[in-house]
């Protein structure tokens, strides 16, 4: 907001108000995160009246968590997220290239892939559950990896489409005239140019899968395949509320995301603002 049509005195006042509002906004965003952080470190996480910053700090909740089998869930999440993201990105990059350059089926293929958003996960997962029972894919990494492709492929295709649109076709045509094959051109010219797009798509897809709950709830039954969100939900549904461990587990679940957010902020911002939302 420009303030050059105001006197310097009221400009200072406007400036001050804006700063106060911005700080209030940041508090609103970060206080819940800080709450989780301090629950995980507090000797007495539940006190009445509550202490936002606890009087005594400890790492015992983290210790209990890590020796109590939580790492198995972290491993499952890491394996499923990585594998499914990689497959989604490869499949989606090819599809997006083809859709952007040749528009197969006059837009039908594009609408088909993007229309997947309209399928609620719980509606897909009921029949998927019955299919997976037959193929013995319940409670296995493979089942979850396959199920997550229904999320990963549409999202990454959407993001990749936007990035391919920015690569001029003339560039490719120039390479063909120089005698390069289509695949050579794709590999040496087009893919390096959309690399930032691939990074954006991969980050967002991975975050979605890391956080996914509904499908994991139905398709996994033991800690041999259950993921972090299932473990976290267990604090309410099966294990009873342990605020210390809950805060610690929450911090472990969100740390990779916050680290990614700060290290790769440009790619993340580009991806999210283009994509609009996750599905």
């Amino acid at each position, binding site marked *: 907001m420009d303030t050059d049509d105001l006197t310097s005195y009221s400009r200072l006042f406007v400036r001050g108000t804006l700063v106060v509002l*911005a700080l209030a906004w940041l508090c609103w965003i970060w206080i819940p995160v800080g709450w989780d952080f301090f629950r995980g470190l507090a000797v007495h996480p539940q006190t009445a009246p509550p202490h936002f910053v606890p009087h005594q700090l400890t790492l015992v909740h983290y210790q209990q968590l890590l020796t109590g089998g939580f790492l198995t869930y972290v491993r499952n999440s890491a394996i499923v997220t990585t594998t499914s993201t990689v497959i989604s990105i490869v499949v989606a990059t090819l*599809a997006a290239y083809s859709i952007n350059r040749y*528009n*197969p089926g006059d837009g039908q293929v594009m609408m088909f892939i993007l229309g997947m958003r309209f399928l609620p996960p719980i509606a897909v997962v009921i029949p998927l559950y019955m299919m997976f029972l037959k193929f013995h894919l319940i409670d296995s990494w493979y089942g979850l990896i396959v199920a997550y492709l229904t999320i990963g492929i549409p999202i990454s295709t959407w993001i990749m489409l936007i990035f391919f649109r920015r690569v001029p076709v003339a560039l490719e045509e120039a390479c063909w005239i120089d005698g390069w094959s289509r695949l050579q051109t794709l590999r040496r010219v087009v893919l390096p140019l959309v690399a930032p797009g691939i990074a954006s798509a991969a980050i967002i897809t991975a975050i979605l899968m890391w956080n996914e709950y509904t499908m994991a709830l139905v398709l996994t039954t033991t800690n041999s395949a259950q993921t972090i969100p299932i473990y976290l939900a267990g604090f309410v549904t099966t294990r009873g509320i342990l605020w210390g461990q809950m805060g610690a587990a929450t911090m472990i679940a*969100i740390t990779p995301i916050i680290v990614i957010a700060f290290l790769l902020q440009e790619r993340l911002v580009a991806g999210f603002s283009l994509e609009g939302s996750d599905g």
Partner: protein
Amino acid sequence: MSTVSYTDIDWSRRRTITWLFVAPAVVTLLAIAIYPFLKMLYDSFFAFNSAGQLGPFAGVANYAYVLTDHVFDHATLFTVGFVIVSVSVELLLGLGVALLIDSFGRFRQALVVLSLPPMMFSPIVTGLTWRMLLNGTYGIVNYWTGLNVDWIGHQPWAYLGVVVSDIWMWTPLFVLVFTSTLHSIPDVYYEAGKIDGMNRWQRFKWITFPQLRTAIAITLLLRLIRAFKLFPKVRVLTSGGPGSSTVSLAMRTYQYAFSFFHLGTGSAAGVVYWFVMLVAAMIVFRALVGDLFTSTEG
């Protein structure tokens, strides 16, 4: 989407590569999304035994059961109300915060990045966090506001709790989309507006808002679809309570299929749920996006 005409390519090779490249995506989605979805449509007309095996044809019995179940009916109302209230507040608050952040030239990017984390958290994390914050005895919300309210156990507080946690989580998305759109509006537009004697409000109305319209429409639509999937958050925040007042459509569908193990009823509920979501999306699409493409304003 720009359709490109490649002039000097031979057609048969072009077709082969085109379909070869989209085939993995299309085939995978047909197998693990479309086929299951069609199977669910089919299953919704059958009874199942308790072992999950297909039983006799049941006609519309599953649908009759679902539609006359007052918990399902309430879940429909609750979900639709939740979507309308949360998404509207997120849109307005997001717009306000985006305009605020846009006024901080040098710190703009930092403020945007610091606003992002909640929307990247799992809904489970959000639900658990707010369950602690809103706890009547040990939570910070009652303590800091001086209220003495049983947020999780009483209405309308539980509704409010679900909405507030959703607003915390998703307003950042609107902030992100709006700040990047605002940033892309060329300064010369505002200069021109000033020369034409527009005041601040006129500049917002005639320059900023038209530029934001597309972003608003698309984000609103995507957010709406996402909001309809409400389930993990309420599962850990309120567990559907008090009573079953915060049971959402997705949660009720889950309960039919996997708590009561009525796969036929669950399938019928899934179909009704999908249909409600589709109708809502169509209404919003017509109201916002349809108008966007037919209107003539530049």
